[in-house]
C-alpha cells in the first residue's frame, strides 16, 4: 500500500501550472519549428516564426506563453493499492490552483452571473481507479479559444465511421482560425455522451509524433492528419501546409444504437505535464 497526502498530489498540480504556463510542451514546440521550416505561404510562415519566437521568449523570461492561461484540467489516476490522506482531493487541487495562478490571468467565473471567482479555481478534476500502487497526475492548462471550437456528435450506426471522419475534419475546418492553429485534435470514439467528451480531452496528453498503440486507430489518425492538413486553413488561418500538429484518438465500447464522436481542439500552444507519484518518489512522463 502506498499512502499519500492529497497535498503532495496538489503540489504537482501547482508546479505544473507554474512551469507549463511559461513553457510550451517540448514536443509541441519541436513540431511548430518543423512546420515553420516547411512552410511556403509567407503570412503562415510569418505566424509560425512568431509562435516559435514567442515560446522561446516566454521560457527565457519566465512570462506566460499565452495570456489565456486557461482553466486547469486535471486527470488523477489512482492505483487500487493507494491510500489518500489529508484534504478532499478537489479541495487540495483547488488550493494548488489558487497558488499556481497567483501571477496569471484569472479566467474562471460563474456561468450564470458571470462573476469571476478571482482565483482561477475551481479546477476540473477527473478521477479514475487503475491497477497498481501509483498516482498519475496529468495537468493541462486549457485555453478556451480552442475549447469553444470543440464539438460532440451522437451519430447513428448507419452513418458509421466514414461520417465520423467527415465530421472530425469538418469540425477543424469550421473552427478555422479561431483556435489558433496549427491545432492538436483530440478525438473520442464510442462510450456514452460524457465519456466520449472526456476521452477526447485525455487524448490531448499524447506527445506530438507518438504513435497510437492500436494499429487501426493509428491508421485512422494518419488518415485524418492528411485530410486536415489538406484543408489549407494553416497557421492562424493564413493558409499553408500545417493545420494540425497531431490527431490523437481514444475509443471505448459503445451501444448498438450509437456512435458518439467527440472532437476536442487544442491550440498550437500545448501546456501539459504528467507526473507519476509512487513510493520511489516522482517521475515525469
Amino acid at each position, binding site marked *: 500500500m502506498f499512502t499519500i497526502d492529497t497535498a503532495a498530489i496538489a503540489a504537482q498540480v501547482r508546479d505544473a501550472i507554474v512551469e507549463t504556463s511559461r513553457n510550451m510542451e517540448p514536443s509541441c514546440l519541436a513540431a511548430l519549428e518543423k512546420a515553420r521550416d516547411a512552410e511556403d505561404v*509567407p*503570412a503562415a*510562415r*510569418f*505566424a509560425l516564426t*512568431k*509562435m516559435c*519566437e*514567442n*515560446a522561446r*521568449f*516566454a521560457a527565457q*523570461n*519566465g*512570462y*506566460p*506563453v*499565452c*495570456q*489565456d*492561461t486557461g482553466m486547469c484540467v486535471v486527470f488523477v489516476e489512482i492505483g487500487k493499492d493507494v491510500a489518500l490522506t489529508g484534504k478532499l482531493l478537489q479541495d487540495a487541487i483547488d488550493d494548488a490552483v489558487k497558488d499556481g495562478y497567483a*501571477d*496569471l*490571468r*484569472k*479566467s474562471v467565473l460563474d456561468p450564470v452571473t*458571470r462573476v*469571476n471567482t478571482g482565483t482561477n479555481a475551481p479546477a476540473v478534476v477527473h478521477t479514475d481507479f487503475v491497477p497498481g500502487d501509483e498516482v498519475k497526475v496529468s495537468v493541462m492548462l486549457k485555453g478556451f*479559444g480552442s475549447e*469553444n471550437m470543440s464539438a460532440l456528435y451522437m451519430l447513428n450506426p448507419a452513418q458509421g465511421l466514414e461520417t465520423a471522419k467527415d465530421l472530425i475534419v469538418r469540425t477543424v475546418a469550421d473552427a*478555422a*482560425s*479561431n483556435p*489558433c492553429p496549427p491545432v492538436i485534435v483530440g478525438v473520442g470514439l464510442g462510450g456514452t455522451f460524457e465519456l466520449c467528451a472526456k476521452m477526447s480531452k485525455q487524448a490531448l496528453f499524447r506527445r506530438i509524433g507518438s504513435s497510437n498503440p492500436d494499429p487501426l486507430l493509428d491508421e485512422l489518425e494518419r488518415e485524418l492528419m492528411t485530410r486536415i492538413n489538406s484543408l*489549407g*486553413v494553416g497557421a*492562424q*488561418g*493564413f*493558409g499553408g501546409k500545417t493545420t494540425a500538429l497531431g490527431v490523437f484518438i481514444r475509443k471505448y465500447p459503445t451501444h448498438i444504437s450509437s456512435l458518439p464522436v467527440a472532437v476536442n481542439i487544442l*491550440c*498550437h*500552444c500545448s501546456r501539459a505535464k504528467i507526473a507519476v507519484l509512487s513510493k520511489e518518489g516522482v517521475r515525469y512522463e
Partner: protein
Amino acid sequence: MSEIRLTMPFDKTELAALKVGDGVLLSGTMLVFRDAGHKRLFQSIEAGKPDFEYDGETVYFMGPCPAVKGQVMGSCGPTTSGRMDKYTPYMFDHGLAAQIGKGKRSPDCIEAIKRNKGVYFAAIGGAGALYSGAVTAVEEICYPDLGTEAVRRITVKDFPAIVAIDSRGRCIYNN
C-alpha cells in the same frame, strides 16, 4: 516577408494603401478591451452617451495577464474577434479606424470595414509573451472593476500583425 512600419493613430491614406496579407509593425497608441468592455460600452451608447470616445482609434481585442517583474504589461496576445462582431459595424460607422484581433469576421463586419475604409489586423494568437515585449506604456481608461477585461490605452512599439481585411474588403481567410 518585409514588414511595413505604421504609426497609430493611423493616417487614413496609409491605412487605405495596405493590402490583405501585408505584414506590419505597429507603433503608437491603441485602445484595448474585449467582451465585457464592449457590452458595457454599448449599454452606455444605448443610454445616450458613450463612456469613452473611440473616434480615429484602433481597438485591440485582448485581456492581459498581470504584469510581472520587468514587464509594463503581462502576456497580451489577441482573443477571438468573432465574439465582438455584433458591435463592430456600429463602431466603424462611428469613427473607429481599425481593429486588431484573431480570426475571421462576419460579412457585416467586412462590409463595414470596406464602407469606412478601415482595416482589420490579425495579431498572432498565442504569442502573448512576445506581444508583452512590444508594450511600452499602459493607462487604465474605464471599467477597472472588469479586471483583465477593463478598458486600457496602451503604447506599443513594433507590434507585429498581418492585414487580415483591407480597406477594399479583401479577406485573408477562406470565409
